């Protein structure tokens, strides 16, 4: 949807691959950096933009500001020592890392995880999804100068963090899903307190829908913005809500069910328009599904049972030679761990596939061309990218 016609005759000629021919020295273009120190980028990354007027002609994503070399560090740590490390790879929802790493180790070492632990893991992953969505929702509203929903969702997220704190002992980094199970049982009265938070969330999400999604300004700015063609999903490796908003129901929870998802009743949310508004709306509805899933989990979870499989001495833990790939559906799409073991006490190689890797680099660079400079931030948040999982 375009609201005014532009004079496109002054636009530069195009190259064979569809990109614009840009001659910076001609002074017809402006070369600006958005980020890393900029309120309009998600996290610590930057976009190098070339604009003409206020329209983006070319974009290059720069990452690496958060590179800590996890994959290298893991090679010199024992498996158990990698466990506190992995959750740091993605700050807003560390638990998917913990789960993928644990599941990979369990698969390579042949460990059977107790039933109760599987349930608790499912619960933790869904809680993480909730926390992450809620925080992102604030960012998405904020990127359009819409401060209010962020105030609401962030305090709701904080309630979830409080529940995390009493369950896992950690607020941001939970370090809870250990290879073999989880580190502790649910505390007393936990279910009740969590259910109360869920009620709050449902209540506030109604307001968020009214205030944000039904808001004319919001609609006008996001509808028609950054349309992902369904045919891009495969060449660009798009997963998660970004693909679902394009009408392609990709959801690891359904496609390759893990943990207790086969026993839970839900349908992946999809959209049709595939623009920023749809992506945001798909996430909002997915958030509500998560609330429902947590209720189901709490209902079906057995009261008692072991939460940890017996482990060998973790200080001398050698894992048989082999390789595997484990995936989980996080808020942004497919989160995966490719692990190679050489039979020693140290992993040979762990490769983390964060969904933002494809979304924030190749896809973003393509989508942002032709977008108004003021909408770049909104477009980015609509893709829901987290830089730490790109560069690791």
């Amino acid at each position, binding site marked *: 949807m375009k609201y005014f016609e532009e004079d496109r005759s002054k636009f530069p000629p195009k190259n064979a691959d569809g990109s614009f021919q840009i001659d910076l020295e001609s002074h017809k273009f402006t070369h600006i950096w958005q980020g890393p120190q900029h309120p309009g980028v998600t996290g610590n990354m930057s976009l190098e933009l070339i604009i003409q007027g206020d329209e983006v002609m070319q974009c290059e994503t720069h990452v690496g500001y958060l590179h800590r070399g996890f994959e290298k560090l893991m090679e010199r740590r024992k498996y158990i020592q990698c466990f506190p490390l992995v959750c740091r790879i993605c700050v807003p929802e560390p638990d998917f890392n913990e789960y993928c790493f644990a599941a990979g180790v369990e698969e390579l070492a042949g460990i059977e995880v107790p039933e109760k632990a599987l349930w608790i893991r499912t619960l933790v992953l869904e809680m993480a999804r909730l926390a992450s969505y809620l925080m992102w929702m604030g960012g998405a509203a904020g990127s359009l100068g819409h401060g209010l929903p962020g105030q609401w969702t962030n305090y709701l997220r904080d309630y979830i963090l409080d529940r995390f704190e009493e369950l896992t002992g950690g607020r941001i980094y939970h370090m809870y899903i250990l290879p073999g199970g989880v580190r502790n049982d649910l505390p007393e009265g936990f279910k009740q307190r969590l259910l109360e938070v869920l009620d709050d969330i449902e209540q506030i999400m109604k307001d968020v829908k009214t*205030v944000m999604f*039904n808001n004319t300004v919001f609609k006008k700015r996001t509808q028609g913005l950054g349309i992902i063609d369904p045919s891009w999903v495969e060449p660009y490796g798009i997963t998660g809500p970004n693909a679902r908003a394009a009408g392609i129901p990709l959801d690891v929870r359904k496609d390759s069910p893990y943990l207790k998802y086969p026993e839970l009743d839900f349908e992946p949310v999809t959209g049709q328009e595939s623009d920023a508004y749809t992506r945001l709306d798909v996430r909002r509805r997915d958030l509500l599904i998560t609330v429902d899933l947590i209720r189901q989990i709490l209902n079906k979870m057995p009261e008692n049972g072991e939460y940890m499989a017996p482990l060998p001495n973790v200080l*001398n833990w050698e894992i048989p030679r082999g390789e595997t790939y484990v995936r989980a559906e996080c808020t942004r799409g497919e989160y995966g761990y490719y692990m190679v073991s050489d039979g020693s006490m140290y992993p040979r190689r762990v490769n983390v596939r964060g969904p933002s890797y494809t979304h924030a680099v190749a896809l973003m660079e393509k989508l942002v061309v032709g977008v108004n400079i003021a909408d770049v931030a909104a477009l980015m948040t609509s893709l829901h990218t987290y830089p730490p999982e790109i560069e690791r």
Partner: protein
Amino acid sequence: MKISDILQPLTAWKNLVKDPITIKDPLNRVAAPRYRGFHKNDLETCIGCGTCEAICQNAAIDMVPVEGIETKDGDSGLRPRIDYGRCCWCGLCVDICTTGSLTMSNAYQWIDNDPEVFRFIPGAEEKPWDTADKGYKRPENYTLNPLKRVSMEELNPADRIQGFMEIVKGFSRDQALQEADRCVSCGICVATCPAHMGIPAYIEAIRNDDLNQGMRILYETNPFPEVCGRVCTHKCETVCSIFHRGDPVSIRWLKRYIADQIPEHEYAAILDSPQEETGKKVAIIGAGPAGLSAAYYLRLQGHTVVIFEAQPEAGGMMRYGIPEYRLPYDQLDKDIKYIKHIGVKIRTETRVGRDISLESLHKDFDIIYAATGLHEGRSTRAKGSDHPKVYQAVNLLRDFTKGLEIPYEAPVIVIGGGNVAMDIARTLARLHMQKMGRVDITLTCLETEDIMPADREEIVEAREEGIQIIPGYGPLEVVSNGDTLKGLKTVRCVSVFDENGRFNPKFDHSDTQFLPASIIVEAIGQGMDLSYIPESIKKEMKTDARGRIQVDAYYQTSLPWFFAGGDIIEGPDVIHAIANGHTAAKRIDHILRGEQ
């Protein structure tokens, strides 16, 4: 554009009348009961094993000495110091802590402008959160290292009582790997082992499946792996850090596993051969563990070593004291043969003082090392204990090993609560079974069961084999009728040691028992026979008030050419004997090489 889309958002104003959700006093907010906050350490419980340091992936923990904490058996005297410039509060150190001393409080505020201060020894440096009762503790039913021992296959009592077959089967490869896996390699045990064997190192060799390396480590400090792998008193296991929360690592059985797996003929290829001949000569009196151990290490240095042994075969108490079901002779022979293999000469049935004089040895050899052991039984000196049917355990065990007939008429009473008493009782039990088809043996001792000096498993196994044990009674009188022994009158012992810890039993004479017996065996301790040392030499040697030879830390007596070691110095214990044989050998080697 719908008009409702413009008006609806205005409903947000309703929040104006809602209660605020802001935390009033965020600075003093208490964290969750499980919160992983700052560390606490109970310095009394902590043993400074350093496992927390080993698991910390951030290298945040240093083990440092702390004032007021002494280094002693089972406690390194070190305590963890945590660098909060490294810590990530994962709590793995708490999870792996072998004693459970390390915990976390739920305190979380530490602010300073000096980056150097974020380093502290929990427990030793006073912190506001030391008294916090909430915080992360290791959950129950959750452990990162297996606490249960791999069970050892043993003959069941009904089978083992039939003969002198070895009871303990030994680990299979899988079992050994699994048990070796339990070791956290803290090394606390090394100091307690009298021989200071490289325990974590050889356990690691088992884990790596490199038994040859394991063998080399064993022989660095102990040339009797087969013997010690079976009958060592395993003091190391009593201080094992895993013992604080679970079963100690079966260090003894793992040692045995290494030795058992390597056939005798491969020893020479694996182990070091003796160095070049030095031409120096050492005579050793007594081919027991101390003598043989000294001989082995002296021979390795290239000295000529001759051992003089009174008995027909080498081994000393290992052969003539320990029954075959605990230590099969072929295993003992395996160790001794290798010592002989490297060139140690053993002259058996040569009693110094009778067949050859000490003076002539002094003339022919540069140094003499005496390790003649404790082979004289001690009497209870109870009334009537000079009766001919009252025997000494050491004598019976020696005769039995030699293949001589020993008396066994039921009922038998054994007096004594130590391992020798158990050995003779269980040997006789086997004889009873073979000759009579039933066991009729009663063992009585001064000590109550909790302080009986015998190994726990010996007591349990003796009971399983049908031996009745009556602890807490002392012998009062041997009742006899001429040549026939009637039995033993005992009296209840109230306390064995006085307040100074000296042996001074007190009895309650109102509580006596009469135990019928055909023979009585005394097994309350052994004495030494030093008659081979001529008075002229003895006079020059420093002795204590009770006539015992005085030695320095290297087992050298006041005569520079005369060393003494083994049980006559240290009291009865195989591993001590082996250790001081090694110590003496190192000193002797120094002297022979003219070093100080």
